């Protein structure tokens, strides 16, 4: 005899279309109240992933959801149009058709959340994705360090948007955080946001270079106050990539921002997320801390390049019962 566990009734799912974060004036009083206890954050993430697990068809569904939230990324010095074409082809068909059939979701048109590239690769990506509805995201503002003159960084955004990028992943100037110059950080992100126009802005905090979780939470809040649509952990080029403690800290900032302003801001962990198991941990984090709404590409993305392959293998295992191999899945 087994009682079934009771799932909480569906999260309070707001029916109206999510409206874009327009930002609010810089509130330094709020920043002063920020308290982050590192040990408690670490305990929470350690138990969070032990408290929840998803099995069988639930696992398959969650993995498919993870796929739909991937910003399929290539940000390498040796990127070429050919490489971009291959990636975009994968973005359109991230999972083998026979597996989608077997899972009963072939007609859902599951694709990745976006393709993320350097600015000069944007035109190639835009062409390759034409008609797919998949947005092209471009890094900009002197990625990954951000250390070039402001007018060049703004011009880089305008350029990428002009080439058809629908999303711009900007990097912040870490100096502003490390010196506590919140006004400068606010002005910087607000300028970037203005330059983006209709394109959505993802603010990369490069958390590994911000020293403390408190700084990370403050920087998250300032980026949101300045109108960021997403906040993102890392460029993938820092010494440490996305971690769960950092993500929890940022996600709680998003929650607090929503509570105070009513605006939803998205979250994008990036770098180092390579396995299906990692992906599940982040999905659980989002569902537990922010709720069901943050399990959609509108509010959640993985910045990843190799994650998809591992998810494909897990899905094939779910379908066949046999452990899969990477070479069985078309590369991107």
């Amino acid at each position, binding site marked *: 005899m087994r*009682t*079934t566990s009771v799932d909480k009734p569906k999260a309070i799912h707001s029916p109206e279309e999510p409206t874009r974060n327009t930002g609010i004036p810089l509130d330094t009083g709020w920043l002063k109240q920020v308290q982050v206890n590192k040990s408690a*954050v670490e305990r929470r993430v350690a138990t969070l992933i032990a408290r929840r697990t998803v099995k069988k068809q*639930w696992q398959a569904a969650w993995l498919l959801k993870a796929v739909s939230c991937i910003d399929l990324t290539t940000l390498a010095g040796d990127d070429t149009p050919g490489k971009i074409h291959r990636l975009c082809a994968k973005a359109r068909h991230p999972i083998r058709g026979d597996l989608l059939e077997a899972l009963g979701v072939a007609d859902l048109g599951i694709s990745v959340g976006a393709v993320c590239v350097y600015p000069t690769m944007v035109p190639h990506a835009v062409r390759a994705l034409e008609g797919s509805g998949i947005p092209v995201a471009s890094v900009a503002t002197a990625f990954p360090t951000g250390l070039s003159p402001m007018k060049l960084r703004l011009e880089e955004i305008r350029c990428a948007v002009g080439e058809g990028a629908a999303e711009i992943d900007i990097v912040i100037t870490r100096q502003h955080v490390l010196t506590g110059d919140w006004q400068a950080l606010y002005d910087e992100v607000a300028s970037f946001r203005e330059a983006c126009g209709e394109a959505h802005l993802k603010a990369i905090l490069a958390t590994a270079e911000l020293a403390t979780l408190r700084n990370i939470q403050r920087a998250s809040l300032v980026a949101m106050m300045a109108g960021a649509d997403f906040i993102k952990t890392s460029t993938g080029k820092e010494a440490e990539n996305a971690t769960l403690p950092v993500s929890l800290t940022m996600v709680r900032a998003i929650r607090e921002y929503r509570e105070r302003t009513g605006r939803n801001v998205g979250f994008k962990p990036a770098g180092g997320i390579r396995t299906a198991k990692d992906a599940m941990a982040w999905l659980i984090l989002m569902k537990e801390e922010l709720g069901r709404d943050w399990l959609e590409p509108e509010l959640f993305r993985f910045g990843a390049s190799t994650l998809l392959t591992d998810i494909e293998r897990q899905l094939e295992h779910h379908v066949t019962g046999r452990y899969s191999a990477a070479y069985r899945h078309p590369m991107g």
Partner: protein
Amino acid sequence: MSSVREIFETMEYGPAPESADLALGWLEEHRHTFHPFINGEFPRFMDESYFESVDPRNGQSIARIVQCGDMEVNAAVAAAKAAFASWSALPGHERARYLYALARQIQKHSRLFAVLESLDNGKPIRESRDIDIPLVARHFYHHAGWAQLRNETFIGYEPIGVCGQIIPWNFPLLMLAWKIAPALAAGNTVVLKPAEYTSLTALLFAEVLQQISLPPGVVNIVTGDGRTGELIVRHRDVQKIAFTGSTEVGRIIRRETAGTGKKLSLELGGKSPFIVFEDADLDAAVEGVVDAIWFNQGQVCCAGSRLLLQESVAAKMLAKLRHRMENLRIGDPLDKGIDVGAIVAPVQLQRIRRLVEQGRAEGATCWQPSWALPQEGLFYPPTLFTDVEPASTLAQVEIFGPVLVTMTFRTPNEAVELANNTTYGLAASLWTENINLALDIAPKLRSGVVWVNSTNLFDAASGFGGYRESGFGREGGNEGMYEYLVPNWERFLPAYEKTEIVLSPQPLANSQHNAGGEPLIDRSPKLYIGAKQTRPDGGYSFSVENADGSYVSEAGLGNRKDIRNAVEAAHKAESWSRATAHLRAQILYYLAENLSVRAAEFSDRLILLTGADAGEAYREVAKSIERLFYYAAWTDKYDGYVHQTPFRNVTLAMPEPWGVMGVVCPAERPLLALVSLIAPAIALGNRVVVNPSWRFPLLATDLYQVLDTSDVPSGVVNIVTGHSDELAKVLAQHDDVAALWYIGSAKGGAMVERESAGNLKATWINHGKRRNWLDDHQAQGWEYLRHAVQIKNIWVPYGE
């Protein structure tokens, strides 16, 4: 069954059952019938009766277990007694090997233990898998180390003998480990009784004992309800009782064991505060609350069940908490994605319901999440009460369920007052990002454990146990080992001669004239309360005689009101407990100095009163002065520890004075015994109410002037002369006296232990055994220092 497509939309978790097959197979193998483990076997007895063990998920019986009676308990104790000689004589290394083997076996079979625990108890598999069982293994590893190191670490101590251990149902195997590991490490043998709701993991553990070939009789496990426990508590051949359970039963055991010579440790109930200051990380504190009160369905003795919120953040914190409660998942304990499992038994569930109803009736506001409970099984939802006042039943009574009550405070001082406004004192949790505040508040909380920015952290290296009516004794760490050891000098102490015990003053009869017939100048000493010489409340005196029976003087006959006044004076001297150790040491040295100035006078008094010869009297005075030096020396060196708990934090084991202590002194060596007892107590920061030798009070009253001239602050030492056992009884019954030392007759000692059950004060008695106060080995040292303090463990995680 939901399809992938549907789940892709709902993004629900779905079931994630842990297989119970192996555990059910184990039950099946035993035909769901279990017998006690005695002398290395599972023997059958005549006329066995059985009780049922129930799966709390559905109320169905999963096992029938023998209700052990006289025969079983006698056999178990006899086996433990027989095994003691050889087990205690084993080299530490060999005992260490057994404990190490236990740790390894538990790790190897960890999932079976975890599943069986959740089946039997109803706790979520995540908890039994990730918390209970790993802590069990850790406890045996840690204590394998103590077994190895016992002789060199606990010099002058030896094992006690047969330990009777009675454990609760909330952490069945973990409590077993907390009891058995230190007992075996110290060299004792054990008769353990698991709670009747949750015997199964103890019985599986018994099989592990067979696997590692632990010598028969070293550990015996008898099953049954409170009746079986009572047989253990009353058994003549049991030398130590360790009990974890309710305060009510703790009191019964205290009375039951009074005067039997059984060593006792009690880990009882709690109503622990969870204090959130305005500068806390509130999101962290919310998770803390989850771990505090919804861990193990709130069936945790140290559960943070009173949420104290600073007013400025109360509304925000409560909003976050309600939101978090909506996300808790309750259900099948064997589902891996469950936060809250089932309540252990119907009677517990009824108790929770009744108390919640009472809370509502008293006007408190009850809030529960919107989701529905499972249809079947013993479940109770996480519950939050606001509009609760300290006077509410819910704020005072231990509910032992997933029910949290909230109160607010304005200032840190008010937080401390609310936190301490309880008869319990097990644990406390405090949340602030201000280290100054944290380290200011932690010592002010009257509880055995304080968790800073954390909660419900446990480890074998850190002592766990309560203040006040949460019991006494510690489990874990080196402080826990002392609960299973006794000083090696105790065994050899002789009993008092009968004549020594009946020594009592004569009623007022003698002439108050000197030999020449001339009236004496009256210098009848009064009592010494709050540094003032006070006439006894009752207006009676008693006469004091010389060794030859002739009249010397009168002394004030103290009564219960004098004790009351002395206790009040001692409470007012609270600053002594906070004074620096250096200052206290200086005052003890000063006392020694002033006593030495008057050494001749005290010697003469001793000669006159006790009939001692000059040499003997001189030795007593000289030894008294030395002893003051001895404890002055210890004052700033009795340090405490930083325990090595296995994660990033500092665990401070701080020795804290009891506060107000009673000290009842024996007839013999009236000056030296008095000094030997008072000095360690005040050295470590206690304020004392002393009843000096009933027969020879003048040695104490002569000290008044020494105390006055040595800068001993008012109220630190209060002296009430009079009938020792009468005054000891008043002290034992006094709820505002935290500890009581009684050195006197066996009968008086038994009375003290029995009467102390009211507030469960810690007592230290001599069981009618005579100490040689001139022998340093038995009249001073670690045992005296240890009994003058209780250990508070403060956990301070760090990291920015």
